[in-house]
């Protein structure tokens, strides 16, 4: 693996709430190499968005407890002062959010909001230049009539167009890393595919390293190089796309894969699902957090398994499951 652009080590993010300390992220580590697409997969509340936002200092507040270490090209991110983190936000690491309707300010034109991002980092760029650049960007992400659309307000665009504009805004300063937080969740299925193709193209053509945050393994299958599966604030499994899809090690991942609807298989009686609901982060079960929902649970599971390499043939893989790998293959069938 080449030099990492972005590194995160043992990141822990907790929030002080009335019910106690809510540990949203409990020790996540990963590296992102240039040009790589890393998918972070998990249900809502698994800590994937909090991880991403914490790297950019967006979760900082008086009741947030942030520990660990994260760096971008050697610059420490978690303790960087406001000015330093602002230089990285938007300029080196850009972010695209889930709902493009609410993520644009409704009272400003699209072009003005893109221009604002440019001018926040490039003081010498005039408003007219920023507008011209906005037109180029909108054109680059496939918005027809960009020259006109630059003067539209967010509500005048369709959902797909808005998300394209959001991506255009993220690209405004030619960042090295794009964090896409559920970029297709709020969109129609047909539009989802278009947006994913756009992200893929940007990754290929610009070498844009991407962190794709999603709950949808279908999205992952189309775009990711590597996958982190998160559950209740912890990574339960990580590996390459093929490893995760063809040889999943954690029963939670099996469940996620099992609940993908596939057109190439016979339709099951009922759509498969993982029984139960994710645990409350304020009241995690001792040991493996997935234990209460896991059909393969045994005595050892009352002890928290570490995120370790358990397959001799694949030293890069990690998972948190006590089951014997050979045993797993049998049970998965």
């Amino acid at each position, binding site marked *: 693996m080449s030099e990492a652009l972005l590194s995160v080590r043992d990141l822990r993010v907790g929030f002080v709430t009335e019910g106690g300390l809510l540990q949203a992220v409990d020790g996540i580590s990963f590296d992102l190499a240039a040009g790589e697409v890393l998918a972070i997969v998990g249900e809502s509340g698994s800590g994937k968005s909090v991880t991403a936002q914490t790297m950019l200092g967006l979760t900082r507040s008086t009741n947030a407890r942030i520990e660990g270490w994260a760096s971008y090209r050697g610059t420490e991110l978690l303790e960087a002062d406001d000015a330093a983190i602002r230089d990285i936000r*938007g300029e080196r690491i850009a972010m695209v*959010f889930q709902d493009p309707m609410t993520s644009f300010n409704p009272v400003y034109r699209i072009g003005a909001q893109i221009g604002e991002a440019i001018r926040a980092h490039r003081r010498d760029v005039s408003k007219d230049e920023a507008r011209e650049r906005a037109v180029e960007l909108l054109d680059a992400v496939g918005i027809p009539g960009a020259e006109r659309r630059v003067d539209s307000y967010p509500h005048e665009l369709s959902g797909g167009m808005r998300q394209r504009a959001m991506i255009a805004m993220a690209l405004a300063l030619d960042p090295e890393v794009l964090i896409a937080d559920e970029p297709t969740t709020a969109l129609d299925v047909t539009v989802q595919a278009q947006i994913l193709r756009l992200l893929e193209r940007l990754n290929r053509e610009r070498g844009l390293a991407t962190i794709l945050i999603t709950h949808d393994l279908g999205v992952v299958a189309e775009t990711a190089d590597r996958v982190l599966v998160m559950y209740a604030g912890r990574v339960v499994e990580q590996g390459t796309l093929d490893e995760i899809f063809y040889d999943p090690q954690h029963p939670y991942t099996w469940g996620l894969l099992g609940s993908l609807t596939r057109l190439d298989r016979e339709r099951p009686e009922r759509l498969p699902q993982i029984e139960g609901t994710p645990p409350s982060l304020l009241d995690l079960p001792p040991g493996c957090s997935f234990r209460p929902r896991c059909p393969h649970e045994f005595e050892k599971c009352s002890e928290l398994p570490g995120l370790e390499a358990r397959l001799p043939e694949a030293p890069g893989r990690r998972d948190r499951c006590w089951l014997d790998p050979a045993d797993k293959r049998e049970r998965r069938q």
Partner: protein
Amino acid sequence: MARFVVRRLIGMVAVLFAVSAIVFLVFNVIPNSDPAQRMAGKAATPRLVASIEEEWGFDDPLPQQYLTMMKKVFSGELISYFGREDVDERIVEGIPATFSLCIGAAAIWLFFGLLFGYLSAMNAGGKLDRALTILAVAGLSMPVPFIAALFLNYLTYKTEIFPSGGYVELTADPLEWLEHLVVPWITLAILYVGFYSRVLRSNMLDAMDEDYVRTARAKGLSERRVIRRHVLRNSLVPIVTLFGLDVGVLLGGAIVIEGLFSLNGIGEYAYISLQNVDLPPIMAITLFGAFFIVVFNTLVDIAYAYLDPRVQLGESAR
């Protein structure tokens, strides 16, 4: 835009008609309001009452009386039943005092309401926020006559810092004008300062949780710019609405404050006319007030469409 204004003008005619008809009818059904009887005095002979009725047209059918009155209101020929003065002239005379009171108080409450609301929101949960919250709630819950009584007692009667009432024309003596208005301004503004600061505080706190504010931060904008361009800008839109409507209402006369401080404005005229059950001034003042309410409603809608591009003054807007 032109169609919108035309539609609003038609609407205004309808509003003024409805308001005047209601005032006229109410006046004619309340007990002891027969103007001829009241004008003739306590020891009136039936002949005197009858002659007054004939002279003033009180024996005409009601619709006709109504039409006559409306004609007089808009031609400036309206005469009050008591004192027999030119009503429209009195209203015009009252305008400087009423407008001075309203505009001055509005400037004060807008400034302090926004300042306190902003400080509260930026320190939400902190000591300053709590102190301002207590002040705001106190301002909101104290009745205006009570505040006025306090001020009149301590600032004018006991210490004689300010004159206890009356109005001096701005053109006659600007300093005197100011001295006479400071206490009424503050009295009127206190309620609104409390209200506006609470509204702005909650709008700003809501806005801070908006996705677009997170986007603005993620773009790398400075915190100052995030607050000013994204939080404050969006939070001020509803304030514009409130402000327009409140000013519109007060331009028609602040009855209680003008009465208490003897400002001799339209509000005080209304106060006196209500005591006398004197229909012509009540009618004219009500129409005068309704006019401003409709005009400011329209201005607010135009401002709203300008400030929030999602709002359109199109077919569906009324």
